[in-house]
């Protein structure tokens, strides 16, 4: 293991060095950028990051410059699965042939919700069955943000996007239910030893999960909830507060599935009403009381099933 310890539980444990550095074109208060920074910090200097097309490619590596201080590569929007498999296999082969020094290299694939849950899903499924050593991380900003905030299969019910504008005929915005990607990965690939969810508003939990996903043998999967001020229509200073509210209301849940065993990582002591989360975001501004009640019922049922309540 290339770190002193696996768990990062306090600020003292958090590595000082930054490998995702200042100087990128993301919006003010960008949640996915915070995710990149924390992921790189946890993974450390012997990591290699591959990012699928999306904000975390386009807004980071602008005009022939990059904020990644560790090796980084771009992959096509739907190509993250094959790219990480290829990189992991190539490192293994080069080390076997003596062309590279034998050491632990952490191959990380980053893809947005569009890149992971829609366009790259089959490739990720292949990567999960591959047996190569890598960690695929989905930064979930709940839309195709980079092309102007279109709905993806991870956009929540009721949300405005440019593809789901609420209007006179269709009052609600997005009427599809958010796909449960981590459960899908876990259920469909019983060989995968580590599947987890995290949030940029719980940075210690996130950093520990990055290390656990990298330490486990074979492929691993992590989905990180990352508030997006532009796509969710909120003021940039609220990024961390909104991410925290998502977990405190039960709209996002933090858990791990380790060797098939489900374990909650955080149980809000007393769940807050979902309206506290929804009302801070312009993408839900058109919703009314009955809609809040409907979402509350759905979230209550999901939390009961997960053992949060």
């Amino acid at each position, binding site marked *: 293991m290339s770190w002193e310890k696996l768990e990062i539980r306090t*600020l003292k444990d*958090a590595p*000082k*060095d*930054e*490998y*995702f*550095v*200042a*100087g*990128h*074109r*993301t919006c*003010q*208060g*960008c*949640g996915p*950028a*915070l995710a990149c*920074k924390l992921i790189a910090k946890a993974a450390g*200097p012997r990591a290699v990051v591959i990012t699928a097309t999306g904000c975390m490619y386009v807004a980071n*590596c*602008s*005009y*022939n*410059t*990059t*904020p*990644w*201080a*560790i*090796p*980084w590569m771009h992959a096509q929007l739907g190509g993250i699965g094959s790219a990480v498999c290829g990189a992991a296999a190539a490192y293994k082969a080069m080390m076997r042939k003596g062309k590279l020094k034998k050491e632990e290299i952490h191959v990380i694939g980053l893809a947005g919700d569009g890149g992971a849950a829609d366009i790259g899903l089959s490739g990720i499924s292949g990567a999960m069955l591959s047996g190569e050593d890598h960690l695929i991380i989905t930064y979930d900003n709940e839309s195709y943000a980079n092309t102007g905030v279109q709905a993806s299969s991870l956009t929540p019910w009721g949300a405005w996007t440019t593809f789901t504008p609420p209007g006179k005929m269709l009052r609600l915005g997005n009427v599809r239910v958010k796909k449960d990607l981590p459960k899908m990965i876990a259920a469909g690939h019983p060989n995968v030893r580590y599947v987890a969810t995290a949030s940029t508003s719980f*940075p210690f939990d996130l950093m520990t999960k990055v290390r656990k996903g990298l330490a486990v043998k074979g492929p691993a999967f992590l989905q990180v909830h990352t508030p997006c001020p532009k796509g969710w229509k909120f*003021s*940039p*200073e*609220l*990024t*961390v*507060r909104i991410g925290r509210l998502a977990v405190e209301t039960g709209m996002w849940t933090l858990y791990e599935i380790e060797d098939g065993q489900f374990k909650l990582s955080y149980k809000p002591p007393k769940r807050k009403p979902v309206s506290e989360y929804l009302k801070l975001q312009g993408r839900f501004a058109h919703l009314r009381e009955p809609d809040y009640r409907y979402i509350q019922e759905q979230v209550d049922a999901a939390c009961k099933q997960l053992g949060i309540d």
Partner: protein
Amino acid sequence: MTKKFEEFPTWKEMPVGLVVFAPPVNGPNPHYKTGTFRTLRPVTDPAKCNKDGLCWLYCPDSCRSSDAETLFAVNLDYCKGCGVCAEVCPTKAISMINELEFKE
């Protein structure tokens, strides 16, 4: 005059394309300054700061120093003025001040 096939470089001789050089660890990326995004500047009150470092950890732009003695000093060439640091600060030590109030 058109080249003969044998005169073209082989794949082993081709220069690698689309390579971008990495910034140093801890940065910044010298080629892309983002301080002009900012309209509000974070200013830390030393009397209120308990030096816990949460502002450093949560900055999405990695533009705060990790040194507690400088109160996690902000690199103003890069700070976008998002206000996340002020929002997460448990002691409310950071104020976001209008850039127009600064001379420099």
